[in-house]
């Protein structure tokens, strides 16, 4: 006899009843606004128009549709640049206003978690310098990296809790000439993709009904400061984060479950750079091979820098050990862009990825040979000096 649980129905009802002013649990934003009222800092408001989405415990989070300041990711821009490019392409596809700043540094949290050659004051100062730069630009920060997103939420908690830390960082910002600003919400790009998924679905040009997808939720997205990650009663009963999975479903592809979904990818921060025996083993034995055995996906989608890198790059060496690998890996932003007709090389830049992705493109109905030929023509023009750079107009030609 089935257990008569009505938790999912109850969560759905609560989602519909609650508004942004009625959080069901402690809401750190109350303290953020209290500090603003005391004159301690400026709170940068989420610009209109915004979309309300449900967080883990039911609070409605504001996700700005546009006027966004794109806090870029080291690993995305450096090693998988089609990731960042696809995020911008999606913004352009919706004709949204955005800012791709040069007055931005890394959050430096990859190094903080890898080597500990930093400290709480430095990390908070780096965060507040970037937030100040966003505020000065008039655009609202949208954070591309899962680690930056999680770490900035840690920094927000530390700054709210410790007056002496606020004083230290305020002094630094004063010396830099930067305003002392905390954003009203800390927003990850995958929350924006989730919020816009129906817009993307309307613009979909490919039939994805035969594409099976496994989703890897990024640790620093849903495990670090859990309460304002996005959950949806319609996705796994609200028991897992809804970002990525809900996008896959909206685009008409199939989300396939696997048992090790909670496991990390094996990135390890220092391990991916100097101790990759751990990274390779964990990524292939606990993630890719399990996905292959239990779900046999056409592609793995995830929403963070380190996860794409680790799950994609680790598969090459594992082939020598007869591990069941060979599943392409990309971000949900790249997948959504492909579904909407983006060029696999000019926009999604799949030639930077390692694991064989061409069978996936064929199954999606993309003529990768013709698209590669077009891209090679682009490269030839760049090589001959006919053009210095590929432009957005070239990307959509």
């Amino acid at each position, binding site marked *: 006899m089935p257990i008569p649980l009505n938790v999912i129905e109850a969560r759905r009802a609560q989602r519909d009843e609650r508004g942004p002013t009625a959080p069901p649990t402690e809401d750190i934003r109350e303290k953020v606004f209290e500090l603003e009222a005391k004159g301690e800092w400026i709170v940068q408001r989420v610009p209109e128009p915004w979309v309300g989405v449900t967080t883990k415990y039911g609070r409605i989070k504001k996700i700005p549709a546009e006027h966004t300041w794109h806090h*870029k990711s*080291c690993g*995305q821009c*450096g*090693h998988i*640049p089609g990731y960042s*490019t696809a995020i*911008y392409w999606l913004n352009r596809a919706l004709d949204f206003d955005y800012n*791709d700043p*040069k007055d*931005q*540094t*890394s959050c*430096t949290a990859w*190094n*903080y978690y*890898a*080597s*500990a*050659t*930093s*400290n*709480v004051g*430095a990390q908070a*100062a780096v965060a507040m*310098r970037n937030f100040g730069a966003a505020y000065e630009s008039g655009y609202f920060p949208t954070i591309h990296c899962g680690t930056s997103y999680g770490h900035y939420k840690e920094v927000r908690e*530390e700054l709210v809790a410790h007056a002496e*830390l606020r004083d230290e960082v305020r002094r*630094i910002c004063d010396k830099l000439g930067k305003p002392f600003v905390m954003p009203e919400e800390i927003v990850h790009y995958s929350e924006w993709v989730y919020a816009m998924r129906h817009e993307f679905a309307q613009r979909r040009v490919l039939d994805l009904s035969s594409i099976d997808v496994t989703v890897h939720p990024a*640790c620093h997205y849903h*495990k*670090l400061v859990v309460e304002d990650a996005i959950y949806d009663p319609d996705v796994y009963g609200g028991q897992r984060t809804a970002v990525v999975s809900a996008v896959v479903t909206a685009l008409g592809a199939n989300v396939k479950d696997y048992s090790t979904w909670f*496991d*990390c990818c094996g*990135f*390890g*921060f*220092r*391990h991916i750079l*100097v101790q*990759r025996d*751990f990274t390779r083993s*964990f990524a292939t034995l*606990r993630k890719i091979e399990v996905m292959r055995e239990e779900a046999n996906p056409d592609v793995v989608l995830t929403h963070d820098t380190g996860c794409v890198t680790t799950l994609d*790059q680790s598969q*090459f*060496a594992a082939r020598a050990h007869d591990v069941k690998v060979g599943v392409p890996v990309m971000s949900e932003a790249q997948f959504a862009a492909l579904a909407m007709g983006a060029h696999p090389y*000019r*926009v999604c830049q799949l*030639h*930077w990825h390692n694991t064989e992705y061409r069978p996936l493109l064929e199954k999606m109905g993309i003529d990768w040979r013709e698209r590669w030929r077009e*891209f090679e023509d*682009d*490269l030839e023009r760049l090589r001959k000096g006919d053009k*210095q*750079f*590929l*432009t*957005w107009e070239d*990307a959509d030609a």
Partner: protein
Amino acid sequence: MTLQARYADVPVETKQRLFDEVRADIRFKDYLFGCYECGICVAACPSARFYDFSPRKIAQATGREDLGMFYEQLNDDIWNCSQCFSCLRCPRGNNPGGLITIMREVAINNGLTSARQALEGYGRVVYKIMSTGTQVSPDMLQPNAFPDWGPHVAEISENLELWRRALPPETLHTTTTAWYVDDKTLTELYLIWHMTGVLDMIKEVDEGLHMILNDVMEELLEEAGYSTA
């Protein structure tokens, strides 16, 4: 010989001093609330599957002020942590990964040999993030640095400059940084490293790197009118 016996000759005063440094960190009381010894953190921990490593023991040693176990962990365990924070599943709200972050900082600040060894080979990354403001750069994709990633890395390396020009976003036409970072922005970052004592931390574990970073930063800071004295 048990592991703790290996450190029996380290004076208890030294172990106590290092423990006190961890406990004095402002994050400490937000990261430890007691331990049920339920092992949920261990079940979720990727490093526990691969190494002789236990986030539960980290919470226990710090909670009980077990100086012997703490010192052993400070030297033999903390660098195995993946910092994924899967251990935040703890029903008591403990953050063993966060405790390890603090312990690593104390190990660096005190120049422990184990910390120096853990960071061997990592200096080029510290240099990259602190001097350029981005953690990794396209030109780090070299076949000799990533042989286990296969021939694809060599293909990227050979075509790097051309492929970077074939990126539509203007900020990504770079090879030595992940994106364009303004000089003024970089100057501000250098000032943060100076004002928060991060350069002093580097000095404890890598004097050569500290000297190089200081030289790079000094020039830009002085040009911008900041004194580094």
